[in-house]
């Protein structure tokens, strides 16, 4: 009952409801801008949450994530340009419906399917996180070390087309995490006598650089996206006969979205394509897919919105962010003094249940705002690209400065952006790098703490059952990824 009381308290304050609506509104606009992913939209908003109370701030960030997943489908349907990666599958039938003069119907199906998926994902989050966190309370330092290794191995194994490059990025991130004061001896490491580096490089600075600045750099060599016609976009909610057809693809999207969401590294894009494929396989009208099928819009949209809730399960339960957006949310939690993981439920239950309540409001807000925000959203997205990009760059520069009033942070963000773009040129995924930065401290400090406990004996890692299980899992994942890569590289 105390959980409900926390949730009710958050809702009754009013600021959480306002934060949810504001976050969703910004999320829809950000998601509708091609190139601005949910994580970038969240990162841009982060500095504005700095002065807010923790619960509304976290709710606002999570709401951006929810809104952006729907926003991404708007340009996907109207101009065949997915606003987010996860909306790429929506292009196939959504744009075809638009070409047939059914764009409004496609937008309506996207909105309601996103709402259904969002609620399902939230239910998964509420039901699965607390038991996971309770289990993680039994973790000892060796288990935490193993958990960090598992988190990095999962991401490295699942990101991009190269395990080697995923691991390369994870090690790079870990190296960044070692900058600052050594957690055991207090020695200043890689600070080059700069007092700004003594506290280490804050993950959020790296994330904003890697996501926002890297994308701004990439957009400078991309052509402008086509304009969307506001007149062609009159949103129309599905009638009962259409609803009956949507039930099955939405159920498929919800199940696939749950599975992909709780798996670190998988994310909305894989969920959307996988659910599209499964919806076609199980459909009574598979021939309509690719030709404007309502099911082809419902399944991926439901899946990528289910991911918004399910992806937070490993973040809140174990402290492992499984996606870029979850990593930004982690940055937001840390910014407000909340360390995600099992202790979050013990120390700050009001934040956890306030977030759950806020996400419920955010899903309702997405449905409500989705009906009215389309026209102003299209107006904003249709502004000239140079004006939009310049403003976002200025927003990033001033926003990062606002975090600590430090120009050094601005320089770090630019450095992280350059690193991110360089890695993109090399085909190296950046999510493992973020994981390295986030989990590096946890891995190193718990590794060394374990060795202090065992008197320097590494056997502690396989004598402790949870640690052994997690390490074996990590080894299995890396082994499986290596095997997959070997099969892919083998000449057919």
């Amino acid at each position, binding site marked *: 009952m105390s959980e409900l009381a926390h949730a009710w308290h958050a809702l009754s304050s009013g600021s959480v409801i306002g934060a949810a609506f504001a976050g969703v509104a910004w999320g829809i606009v950000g998601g509708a801008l091609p190139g601005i992913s949910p994580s970038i939209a969240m990162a841009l908003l982060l500095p504005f949450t700095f002065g807010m109370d923790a619960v509304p701030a976290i709710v606002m960030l999570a709401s951006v994530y929810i809104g952006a997943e729907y926003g991404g489908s708007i340009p996907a349907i109207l101009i065949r340009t997915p606003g987010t990666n996860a909306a790429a599958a929506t292009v196939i039938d959504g744009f075809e419906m638009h070409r047939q003069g059914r764009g409004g119907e496609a937008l309506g199906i996207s909105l309601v399917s996103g709402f259904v998926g969002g609620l399902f994902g939230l239910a998964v989050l509420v039901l699965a996180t607390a038991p996971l966190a309770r289990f993680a309370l039994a973790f000892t330092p060796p288990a935490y070390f193993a958990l960090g290794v598992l988190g990095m191995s999962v991401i490295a194994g699942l990101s991009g087309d*190269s395990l080697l490059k995923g691991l390369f990025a994870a090690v790079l991130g870990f190296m960044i995490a070692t900058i600052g004061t050594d957690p055991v001896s207090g020695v200043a490491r890689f600070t080059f006598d700069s007092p700004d580096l003594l506290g280490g490089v804050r993950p959020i600075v790296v994330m904003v650089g890697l996501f926002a600045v890297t994308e701004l750099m990439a957009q400078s*060599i991309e052509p402008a996206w086509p304009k969307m016609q506001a007149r062609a976009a009159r949103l129309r909610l599905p009638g009962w006969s259409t609803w009956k057809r949507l039930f099955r693809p939405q159920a498929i999207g919800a199940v696939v979205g749950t599975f992909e969401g709780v798996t670190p590294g998988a994310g909305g894009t894989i969920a959307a394509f996988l659910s599209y494929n499964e919806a076609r396989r199980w459909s009574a009208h598979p021939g309509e897919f690719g030709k404007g099928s309502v099911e082809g819009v419902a399944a991926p949209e439901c899946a990528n919105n289910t991911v918004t809730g399910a992806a937070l399960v490993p973040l809140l339960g174990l402290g492992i962010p499984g996606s870029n957006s979850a990593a930004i949310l982690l940055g937001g939690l840390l910014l407000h003094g909340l360390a995600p993981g099992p202790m979050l439920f013990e120390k700050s239950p009001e934040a956890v249940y306030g977030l759950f309540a806020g996400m419920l409001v955010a899903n309702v807000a997405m449905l409500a705002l989705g009906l009215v925000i389309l026209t102003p959203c299209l107006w904003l997205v249709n502004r000239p690209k140079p004006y939009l990009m310049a403003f976002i760059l200025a927003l990033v520069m001033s926003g990062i400065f606002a975090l600590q009033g430090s120009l050094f942070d601005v320089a770090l963000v630019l450095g992280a952006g350059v690193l991110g773009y360089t890695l993109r040129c090399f085909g190296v995924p950046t999510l493992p790098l973020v994981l390295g930065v986030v989990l590096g401290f946890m891995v190193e400090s718990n590794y060394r703490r374990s060795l202090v406990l065992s008197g320097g004996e590494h056997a502690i890692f396989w004598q402790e059952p949870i640690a052994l299980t997690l390490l074996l899992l990590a080894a299995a994942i890396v082994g499986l990824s290596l095997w997959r890569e070997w099969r892919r590289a083998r000449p057919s």
Partner: protein
Amino acid sequence: MRRDLTCAAFGVALACAYYAAAAALPRSLLADDVGADGVPKLLAMLLALLSIAIGVRGALRGAGDGGIALRRHARAFGVAALGAAYLAAVPLLGFAPALALLLLAAMLYYGAALRPPALLYALVGAAILWLIFAQGLGLAVPAGIFG
């Protein structure tokens, strides 16, 4: 192949520099068995190994990845250069004027024409951001020579 080889060279160079910096770390009396340099040295070796593996795989694959289009990417790095110029200008010019210049320069860089609407947008944009951050959030922003 060139892309992977360049990545490998970048990784090996970084690993060497990082290892050297780790080896130069002072030894503390409070240090544990691993020491402040233990994990960094391990990471440097891991990075070097992974880089070599990426390079070897790239070489074995042959002319597969087509290399990196340097001229195209150089333009992207210009955005970071704009940010660096802004960073240098802020203490001198102050927060709002530097932001206005950044907005204008970035608009031109992304392809806008130097016309009155762009100038107006830069001024209004900088004023909005100044209002949000300096007035709304109460941030102590650099005043510069005009302050």
